[in-house]
């Protein structure tokens, strides 16, 4: 290595071999933690690419003239839609049922998951059934459900729970089954009752899995809410999207659509933060 340095460098510095860091391997480069400024810069570049691509699609009139508005047009619409008088209530019509559905998903999913994860026979005997039930396409029965449940919040909540509870159940089962056996033995030797052990040992130990399930379910629930609003015609962001699309007001439609997407970003990032906060004791966060 020193010979190479001597022959190639025009001004050999004494001890350059030791000072010069050896070149990083690809794996090291791929894994290194970038600085915050680098991250911001990269984000700006990606956003710029996205906007350019968007504008290009607009200029090429993909999907017919007027289908994709220009970037300035969309920004204008987003501003117009979100500052409208009724916007807050439309937003709440989506967020309220989403929140209610999610609470039921968490409580119900964790409860079912703990039972199925604790009792091996219960898990073994229900696994195929769960896979069967969760493969059910909810879109197929929306028209039917509208008849029985009506065009209502209830409709949204039922669909959220029916589709989004499964990631929660499955994550909880995996979490409960991977509780450290030493933790369980410690709990037993301290004479914790079954219910005490669930609350103080099994549930906290399962939290990393539940948090991941919650993050998945939360975003999924938002998509389901908007889907039900569109297909069932229930008031909310989804219905606004559908109404303006049907009326041919594509620009306003995009305003609502982008609002829904931004909501998705907020939900996803928010739950990631919550996950980090709730798990500050966990090895992955130290």
């Amino acid at each position, binding site marked *: 290595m020193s010979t190479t340095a001597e022959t190639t460098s025009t001004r050999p510095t004494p001890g350059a071999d030791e000072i010069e860091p050896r070149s990083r391997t690809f794996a090291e480069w791929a894994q290194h933690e970038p600085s915050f400024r680098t991250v911001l810069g990269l984000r700006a570049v990606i956003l710029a690419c996205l906007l350019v691509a968007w504008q290009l699609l607009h200029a090429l009139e993909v999907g017919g003239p007027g289908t994709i508005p220009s970037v300035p047009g969309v920004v204008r619409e987003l501003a117009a839609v979100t500052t409208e008088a009724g916007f807050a209530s439309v937003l709440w019509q989506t967020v309220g049922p989403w929140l209610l559905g999610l609470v039921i998903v968490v409580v119900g999913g964790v409860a079912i998951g703990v039972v199925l994860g604790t009792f091996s026979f219960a898990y073994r005997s229900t696994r195929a059934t769960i896979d069967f039930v969760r493969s059910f396409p909810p879109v197929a029965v929306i028209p039917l459900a509208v008849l029985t449940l009506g065009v209502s919040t209830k409709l949204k909540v039922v669909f959220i729970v029916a589709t989004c509870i499964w990631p929660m159940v499955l994550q909880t089962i995996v979490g409960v089954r991977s509780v450290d056996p030493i933790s369980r033995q410690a709990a037993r030797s*301290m004479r914790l009752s079954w219910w005490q052990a669930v609350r103080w040992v099994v549930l906290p130990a399962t939290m990393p899995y539940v948090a991941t399930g919650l993050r998945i379910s939360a975003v999924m629930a938002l998509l389901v809410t908007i889907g039900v609003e569109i297909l069932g015609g229930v008031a909310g962001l989804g219905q606004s999207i559908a109404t303006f699309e049907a009326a041919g007001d594509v620009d306003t439609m995009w305003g609502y659509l982008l609002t829904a997407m931004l909501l998705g970003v907020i939900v996803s990032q928010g739950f990631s933060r919550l996950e980090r906060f709730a798990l500050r*004791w966990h090895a992955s966060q130290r």
Partner: protein
Amino acid sequence: MTNAAHHRKEVTRPMLEVRSLSMTYAGPESPRAVLDDLNLEVAASEFVCLVGPSGVGKTTLLRCLSGLQRPTHGEVRVGGGLVVEPPAALSVVFQDYSRSLFPWMSVVDNVALPLRAQGVKRAKRLARAAEMLDEVGLADVRKQYPWQLSGGMQQRVAIARALVDAPQMLLMDEPFASVDAQTRFDLEDLALTIRRDTGVSILLVTHDIDESVYLGDRIVVLSGRPASVATILDVPFGHRRDQIRTRADPRFAEIRTEVLVRIQGAGESEAAPASAANLDLVG
């Protein structure tokens, strides 16, 4: 042992009694006998060390004694009562403290947990837990989390938790195996102090023969496959010991050699029964 002999030796009943205990695991192919016809007693306030080669079944034995596992044959009694589930009078300090302490609870909450399970009021149990932490020399880490502490400190927390509900019998599975030498000496002295102050009986598993001689009133050598008690040795140092003077005592080296010979001798006698005769000369 006849009743009369029993009474001559000690008036009170032993704290821990193990009668012809056997443990066989159902293996994937053939069942695996680990412990065979094992008999053992620990008197009140006695400190007994259990030594034996790795994999001989020490942890298995402790699990049976603590009611975490049902032995295939035989019985275990703690304070005279038959053990069928973890007894209230007995606490366990696990081999792997970093896994037996709960990382989502603060140190003081970890220590107070056995009392919480019994329904002791919050203020009372936290006061008692703080008292136990003082006892093990950890007054100022109550609000911290176990993973913020060094290995030696975590083991002190585990000991404080084991003592918090005032047990009469303490089982410790290689409790000081993964700390540095100085910390190890300190923790050994802590164990002796606890026995002296609280009068708790201690059964401690160790790989370290020096440690067994320094701590034990008796040393139980486990060996064989399946394992049973090969030898029991008395250690004459009393309740007050000192890391430097006790270890410098000529009898210390003698007992250590004897334990070593017994462990190796037991291994040999299994392989070649003929050499067992030599051992009697040494013992």
